[in-house]
C-alpha cells in the first residue's frame, strides 16, 4: 500500500471515532449534530500537549479524552430534558459556540525559535510529534487502527451486554425505561461522557496526521456527516458507523470520476436509504442475524 492509501486509512479511522460517538448518542435516543465540538477540543488539546509541552501523544490523547469526558458528561446533564429536534439544535449551537471559541483562542509558545500553538482564525500548525518520533505514515496508521479496534471491541462487548440492551431501551422509550428502573439521567451522562471521549480520541489522531488544524474544520457539516455515517452504515451495530465512513471517504472520495460530485451523491444515497432502508445498511434485523446483538443460545 502506498502512502496515500495509508493516509486515507488514517482519515477513515479518525472519522470513524467521530461517527461512533454520534452512533452512541443515537443509541441512547439523542440526535446530536454537535459531536465535532469534542473532536475539535480533542484535536486542540492533544496538539497543544504534544507541541507545546512535549507530551507523549498517547498520554496526551488520554488526558484530552478525560477532559472531554468531563465536558461531555456535564453538557449531557445540562441538556437531559431535551430530546429530538431541541436537543439536535442545542448540540449544534454548542458546537458553533465552541468553534467561535476556537477562532478567538490564542496560546503560543516559542519552541526552538518557532512560535507554536493555536492562533485563532489562523489555526494551529506545525503539529509534528509523529514526524519528530521518526514514524512514517504506515506506523502511525497501524497504531491508530489499534486504538480503533480496541474501542470497537469495547463497544461490541457493551452492545452484547445487558447494559447495551438497556441503552437501546432508553433510546426507544425513555419513559418506559424509567418505569423499568433504568436511571435515565445517569445513563445519559455516562453516554455523553463516553461519546465525548471517543470523539476526542479521533480528533487528537486527526490533528497529528494533518499536522494543521483550524476552526473552520470543525463546522456544522462535520457534525452532520457524523450522524449521516451512523445512519448510512446502520443503527444495528457500531460497525455500521465504520461502514458509513468507509462508504463516503473510502469509496466516494476515492473514485476520481465522482469525487467532485461526492457530496451530492452522498446526500442522494442518504435520502434513498432513509426511504428504502430507514435503519441503515446494518440495521437491527441484519445485526441479529449476524449475531452482533444479544440472542438466546438455546432457542426455547
Amino acid at each position, binding site marked *: 500500500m502506498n502512502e496515500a492509501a495509508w493516509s486515507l486509512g488514517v482519515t477513515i479511522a479518525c472519522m470513524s471515532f467521530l461517527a461512533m460517538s454520534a452512533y452512541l448518542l443515537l443509541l441512547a435516543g439523542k440526535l446530536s449534530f454537535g459531536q465535532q465540538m469534542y473532536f475539535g477540543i480533542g484535536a486542540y488539546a492533544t496538539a497543544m500537549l504534544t507541541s507545546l509541552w512535549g507530551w507523549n501523544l498517547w498520554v496526551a490523547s488520554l488526558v484530552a479524552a478525560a477532559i472531554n469526558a468531563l465536558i461531555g458528561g456535564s453538557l449531557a446533564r445540562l441538556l437531559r430534558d431535551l*430530546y429530538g429536534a431541541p436537543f439536535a*439544535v442545542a448540540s449544534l449551537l454548542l458546537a458553533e*459556540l465552541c468553534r467561535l471559541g476556537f477562532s478567538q483562542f490564542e496560546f503560543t509558545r516559542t519552541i526552538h525559535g518557532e512560535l507554536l500553538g493555536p492562533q485563532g482564525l489562523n489555526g494551529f500548525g506545525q503539529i509534528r510529534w509523529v514526524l519528530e518520533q521518526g514514524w512514517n505514515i504506515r506506523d502511525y496508521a497501524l497504531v491508530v487502527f489499534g486504538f480503533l479496534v480496541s474501542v470497537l471491541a469495547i463497544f461490541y462487548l457493551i452492545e452484547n451486554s445487558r447494559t447495551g440492551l438497556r441503552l437501546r431501551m432508553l433510546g426507544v422509550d425513555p419513559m418506559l425505561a424509567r418505569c423499568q428502573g433504568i436511571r435515565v439521567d445517569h445513563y445519559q451522562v455516562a453516554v455523553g461522557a463516553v461519546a465525548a471521549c471517543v470523539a476526542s480520541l479521533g480528533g487528537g489522531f486527526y490533528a497529528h496526521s494533518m499536522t494543521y488544524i483550524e476552526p473552520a474544520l470543525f463546522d456544522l457539516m462535520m457534525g452532520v456527516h457524523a450522524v449521516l455515517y451512523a445512519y448510512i452504515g446502520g443503527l444495528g451495530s457500531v460497525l455500521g458507523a465504520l461502514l458509513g465512513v468507509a462508504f463516503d471517504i473510502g469509496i466516494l472520495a476515492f473514485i476520481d470520476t465522482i469525487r467532485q460530485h461526492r457530496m451530492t451523491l452522498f446526500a442522494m444515497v442518504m*435520502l434513498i436509504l432513509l426511504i428504502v432502508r*430507514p435503519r441503515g445498511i446494518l440495521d437491527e434485523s441484519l445485526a441479529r442475524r449476524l449475531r452482533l446483538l444479544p440472542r438466546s443460545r438455546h432457542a426455547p
Partner: protein
Amino acid sequence: MNSILQNFADGLALGSIYALIGFSFFLLYGTHRIMNLALGSLALAACLMGNILHQSVGLNFAAVTLASMLVAGVVGYLSFFVLYQLLPDRTGAASLVACFSLWMLIEEMVTHYFSANAYRYVSFFGLGEYRIGTLSLQAADLTLIALAILLLGLLPWFLHRSTLGLAVYGLTDDPAAAAWVGVPIRRLRQQCFMVATALAALALSLQGAKLGQLPPMMAMGLTLKALVLTAVCQPLGYRYLLPCGLGLGLIECFALWYGGATMRDASVLILLLLLLITWQGRSKIAWRLGVPSDSQRRGRSE
C-alpha cells in the same frame, strides 16, 4: 443616537426575516411534525431559479419574486413527497436526518450548477435607500418589516375566522380529530408545505434584493436562527413569533455594533441556547414537539 436608530431599523428588518422564515417552520412543524431544515436551501434554490429570468429576460423584481414563489411551491411539493410521503419512518430522528440530507443535496446542487454570476440578485424595483437625516432605510427592508407585520398580524384572524385557517389550526392541534370532521388532511399538508416554502422564498427574495446577491451559504445562517426561534416559540404559540423574531434581530444588530461579528454571533448563540435549555426543558407542553413531556419522561407530577 443615530447609530442606535440605525441599528434599531436594521434589527427590525433582520428580525422580520427570522419571523417570516420562522413562521414557515412553525407551519410545517404544526401540520407535519417535521422540522424541515431544508426549507432555507429549497427557498434559496427557488429564488436563484427565478433570478435566471431577470438575468436572461430582464424581468423586474416583482416578476422574479413571483416566479421564485411559484418555483418554491413546486419544490415544496416535491420535498413534501420525499420527506413525508415516501419516508417510512417519520419519527423525530429519521425525519431530521432526511431534512439535513435534503439540505445538503440542494446546497451542493446549487453550488455546482449555478455559477457565481447567478448569485447576483435583481434589485428592488431599482429603489435604493432612503435617508432621513443620517438614518438610512432600504426600501426592501421597509417592505420586509411591513410584510412581516401584515402577515403575522393577520394570522390570528386567518386561523380563527376563516374556514381554511380553522382547518389548518385543527390539523396542528389534532390531526385525527381534524380528519374525522372532514378536513382533507393530505391535501392541506401538501398546501402547507408549498405555502411555507413560497413564504420563505419571498423573504429571501427581499433579502437578496436588498443585498444585491444571494449566495448559497446565506440559507444556513438564516435557517438555523429561524429554527431555534421556532423551537423557542413553540410552547408560547405563533403569536410570539413576530416579537421574538424582531427581538432576535435587534439583539444581533446591537451586539454587532457594540462588539463586532464575534460578539454578535456569541451573544445570539448563547441567548438561543439558554432559551432552549431553560424554556424547553421545563415547558409543560414540550410534547407538542413530539417529545415526551417533562413529566412523562421524568415520571413526576405535573
